[in-house]
């Protein structure tokens, strides 16, 4: 062994910003996360030039996976052009030299904050979801050591109690986003704050979903063809947001998840939340030839 064999050639910067040991650690933890679907795996969560809580978990996974041939799409609440999404996309492109896209169909890697695109993801695509709070049990058990024991025992009685109390108090389940879901019949996970509308898209999906919480240092995954069942009572069926009948006032597209935009007169108009889907619908309306992918929801209904 010589000194030469122990060193590497000088590089101005680690490819993809993260250094080798950070990537290897995330790789090892991703392997375990995929092997035990929905189970939170602790990881080191290195510093990235972004404040924790702004997508650092998702960013670290993306930076570990990228290579110069991988086309990256980043969305924030469905929009490709929000500040958070644009900054993360530009950062990944700058440190990894990756091509970027806004089109879900063209993307190899999709990093997302709080939405799953409306077009069906393929089996070669990876969806990376940013997670603010990875612990579904936190509202019922703030002590994370006890929560870990509850996961180990599959002790989810309090989750059901919480849902029951909501129904008794309000007549319906009040959980809007991060709807607790049972993965592979064993671990309850939070699907990150995606709306209820998006949770059925994870069930037996073709794509790989990796959820990463940078601030909380937890990573978990939903492999393809894995059961993801929202917690419901058999006599109170799971309900998605009532958006099936809404029409986007800009693109005219109908039957997708909408953003409500309040108007001065007290009424509101709606705009499709998946911005690129809206853009493509407008371009098609204007006579351009645009490829629209198959959507999860058809006529506002998720086929079962």
């Amino acid at each position, binding site marked *: *062994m010589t000194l030469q*064999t*122990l060193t*590497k*050639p000088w*590089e*101005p*910067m680690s*490819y*993809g910003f993260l250094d*080798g*040991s950070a*990537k*290897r*650690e995330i*790789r*090892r*933890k*991703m*392997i*375990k996360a*995929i*092997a*035990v*679907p929905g*189970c939170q*795996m*602790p990881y080191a969560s290195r510093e990235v030039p972004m404040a924790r809580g702004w997508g650092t978990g998702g960013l670290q996974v993306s930076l*570990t*996976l*990228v*290579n*110069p041939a991988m086309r990256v799409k980043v969305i924030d609440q469905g929009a490709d052009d929000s500040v958070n999404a644009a900054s993360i996309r530009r950062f990944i492109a*700058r*440190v*990894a*030299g990756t091509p970027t896209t806004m089109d879900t169909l063209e993307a190899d890697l999709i990093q997302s904050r709080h939405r799953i695109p409306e077009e069906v993801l393929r*089996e070669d695509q990876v969806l990376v979801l940013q997670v603010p709070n990875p612990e579904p049990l936190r509202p019922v058990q703030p002590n994370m050591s006890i929560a*870990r*024991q509850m996961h*180990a*025992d599959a002790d989810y009685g309090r989750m059901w109690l919480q849902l029951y109390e909501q129904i008794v108090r309000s007549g319906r389940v009040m959980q809007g986003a991060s709807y607790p879901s049972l993965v*592979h019949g*064993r*671990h309850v996970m939070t699907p990150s704050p995606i709306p209820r509308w998006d949770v059925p898209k994870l069930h037996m999906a073709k794509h*790989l979903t990796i959820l990463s919480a940078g601030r909380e240092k937890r990573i978990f*995954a939903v*492999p*393809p*063809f*894995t*059961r993801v069942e929202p917690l419901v009572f058999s006599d109170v069926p799971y309900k998605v947001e009532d958006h099936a009948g809404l029409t986007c006032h800009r693109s005219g597209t109908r039957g997708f998840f909408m953003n409500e935009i309040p108007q001065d007169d007290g009424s509101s108009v709606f705009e499709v939340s998946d911005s690129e889907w809206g853009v493509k619908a407008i371009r098609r309306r204007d006579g351009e030839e645009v490829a629209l992918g198959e959507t999860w929801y058809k006529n506002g209904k998720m086929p079962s």
Partner: protein
Amino acid sequence: MRLQPVPSDFEARCNATFDAVMWALARPGVMRDLPQAGLAQVVEALIDRECAVHCPDEALAMLARRTGAELVAPEAADHVFAETVTPEMPDRLACGSDLHPEDGATLVAGAVFGAGQRVCLTGPGVDGEVIVIIGGLPGDFWQRRARAMRYPMGFEMLLVDGARLIGVPRSTVVEVL
């Protein structure tokens, strides 16, 4: 002028190796292509001084040692690299605990695809069921594996035949046909 970042050969290889490993475990039983033949590339992509490795093969052990990893007995190892799997190995590997399933080991082993036992895989990542023919493992390996593991405890397997890879995570139920 802005420089376009370019991965080094080492970085590109590790990235491609991990891509194959990740998809192999995400889709158990579906064969993936590794950038090159052998187990060494998996050591490069995953192992560093935070790891405890068991590796009967001398050259591979040297490579693992050079990354800074500790060489330990199979029971204490978080990664095991073995060209041939020994019959007692499933009973000796770390399976983690219910509290910390991530402490289960990763077994990277040589195998032969297309000759040997016909096995049917079901579980997460498998669309219905998938049947693969895997040889080069001890005769009662799959039964021993099933006995040694109680989900979510268990170990992951990355089976390598030349430059081809099949992953069998702990969530996969293996039935010998």
